[in-house]
């Protein structure tokens, strides 16, 4: 899969962005779910789906959010979208704190942040034409003039690579890739500033993934959007992101510039993720991470990754992971042994190229 856009690494220069200001700030976000419990509430436990994360999204930037299924990526997305009430923490969108109020003003939020879903088959209402799918949100948000609605729908369809005369069709008349284009059009119809892409290509045929990715990149430039790219597919993240945040069990374990993360990963978890990207040019067996994501209801003692970590020492099993240390270059890591491991990598990469 990586071969599909391996050429991207060279063409992907962090361009000078207009106005380096922050459009989304997530501070100490936590979402806990009470689970189980008997008739009298005994034995209730807390599932810490997201446990204190900080994120920053700059205008015009694409932030990759990476991690295994169940690590809390989607819960973060739902919180930003106002669909999941956080247990703790603040979300500041375009200068407004959206988590302080009792009830979220969804309509105002809708004009700032939107989402593109993973499954283009389940994400379009089978009983609505494309036109209705795009028209209803416009009307809801106060656009009532027929000429303006028609104009905006036609322009949006052209933006996403569809023809305006296809607006009268139903979703089942389109292919998966076209449906995802409709999903993108729906996310963009209200002119939001931020798009959360929740695995936008992982349900698509490999042959059309690149098309959708290029479309997303193109729209980001022309419409001045900011993206949060949620994925477990590092190839996609590598190609699209300016910065990357790696999540493990409800926490961010490493964050930094995409080049830093992919070329000098410091956290053992990030390193195993990157080592697990298949590379068709090198048919060596892939490095695998032993074990599975621990049960978030029963997290391990010490650092959450320690049971699976190749570098774990006594301190890792005893003490919870350190706080996220930010280095001068903006690269931050949550690991007791990050510096030692970084030293080893430099050595190892000259020998075998395999950590």
């Amino acid at each position: 899969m990586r071969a599909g856009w391996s050429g991207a690494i060279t063409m992907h220069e962090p361009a000078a962005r207009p106005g380096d200001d922050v459009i989304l700030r997530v501070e100490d976000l936590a979402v806990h779910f009470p689970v189980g419990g008997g008739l009298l509430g005994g034995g209730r436990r807390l599932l810490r789906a997201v446990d204190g994360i900080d994120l920053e999204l700059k205008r015009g930037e694409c932030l990759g959010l990476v991690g295994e299924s169940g690590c809390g990526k989607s819960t973060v997305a739902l919180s930003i979208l106002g669909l999941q009430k956080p247990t703790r923490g603040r979300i500041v969108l375009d200068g407004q704190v959206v988590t302080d109020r009792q009830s979220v003003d969804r309509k105002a939020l809708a004009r700032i942040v939107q989402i593109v879903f993973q499954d283009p088959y389940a994400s379009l209402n089978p009983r609505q034409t494309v036109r209705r799918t795009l028209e209803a949100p416009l009307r809801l948000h106060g656009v009532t003039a027929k000429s303006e609605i028609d104009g905006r729908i036609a322009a949006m369809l052209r933006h996403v690579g569809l023809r305006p005369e296809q607006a009268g069709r139903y979703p089942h008349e389109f292919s998966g890739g076209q449906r995802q284009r409709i999903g993108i059009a729906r996310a963009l119809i209200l002119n939001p500033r931020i798009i959360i892409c929740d695995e936008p290509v992982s349900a698509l045929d490999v042959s059309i993934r690149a098309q959708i990715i290029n479309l997303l990149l193109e729209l980001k430039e022309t419409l001045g959007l900011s993206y949060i790219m949620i994925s477990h597919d590092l190839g996609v993240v590598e190609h699209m992101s300016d910065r990357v945040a790696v999540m493990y069990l409800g926490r961010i374990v490493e964050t930094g510039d995409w080049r830093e993360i992919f070329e000098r990963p410091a956290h053992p978890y990030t390193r195993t993720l990157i080592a697990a990207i298949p590379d068709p040019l090198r048919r060596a067996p892939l490095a695998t991470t032993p074990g599975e994501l621990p049960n978030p209801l029963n997290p391990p003692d010490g650092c959450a990754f320690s049971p699976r970590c190749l570098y774990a020492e006594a301190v890792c099993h005893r003490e919870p992971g350190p706080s996220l240390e930010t280095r001068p270059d903006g690269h931050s890591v949550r690991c007791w042994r990050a510096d030692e491991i970084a030293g080893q990598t430099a050595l190892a990469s000259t020998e075998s190229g395999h950590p």
Partner: protein
Amino acid sequence: MKFGTSLIIGGALFALAIFVGLLAPWLAHTDPVMDANLMNAEEPPSWTWWFGTDAQGRDIYSRVVHGARISLTVGIVSQLVNSVIGVTLGLTAGYWGGWWDDFVNGLTNLMLAIPSLIFALAIMAVLGSGLTSLLIALGLTNWSFTCRIARASTLSLKNQGYVQAARVLGYGDLRIMITQLLPNMLGPIIVIGTLGMGSAVLAEAALSFLGLGIRPPYPSWGSMLSEAREQITTAPWLSIFPGLAIFLTVLGLNLLGDGLRDILDPQSRSQRA
């Protein structure tokens, strides 16, 4: 039965009943209530009296034709009331969950535990006989299946991407239920509604037979059966023709419901797509 056959036969029978009901004043030979003439009492079926006459000399054919109006009105209107109640309760319960869901579930279980005909009988006893109370009694007692189906569909649909997308776009709960959820669960609701119409026609007949529904001399198929009870050996045509009308209408509605289920079932649809 081959795919589509039951739909065609059922649809044709139901359409025939509707047609007869609508055109009753033109199809009937005589006035079903006023044209009593003891000179023609208890005539067997003949060219003059197609379905024979009753003890008062009224034309059974005309009475059956007019009876279609009452039976179909009761069937359609009471099932519509049932569907509206069932969908409203089931949709909101599935969507909002919480105490409202518990409440609706409890109510549904209660309704399922009481035989609906007995319940309708009790309501009729309170309200008295007549068309309006018949509609109320049958409209309030048969919504539990619709409610269950609507709730189950809502639970499976509400996590679909397009429902989430609607919430992200700022749609209110009511708008989501009406524009996103309802259109996608109509298939099974229509099937249940069609079958429910058949049972409402039967329930009307039963209540009228017991003297609690439509009162003589007005012709409903149930009340005609009730009147014919005493002459079942001497003048069997008095009960055969209204009975046949009930049988064919209910059969038609059941076949129609089955046929619609074949078409609207998401699984059979995806096989054909």
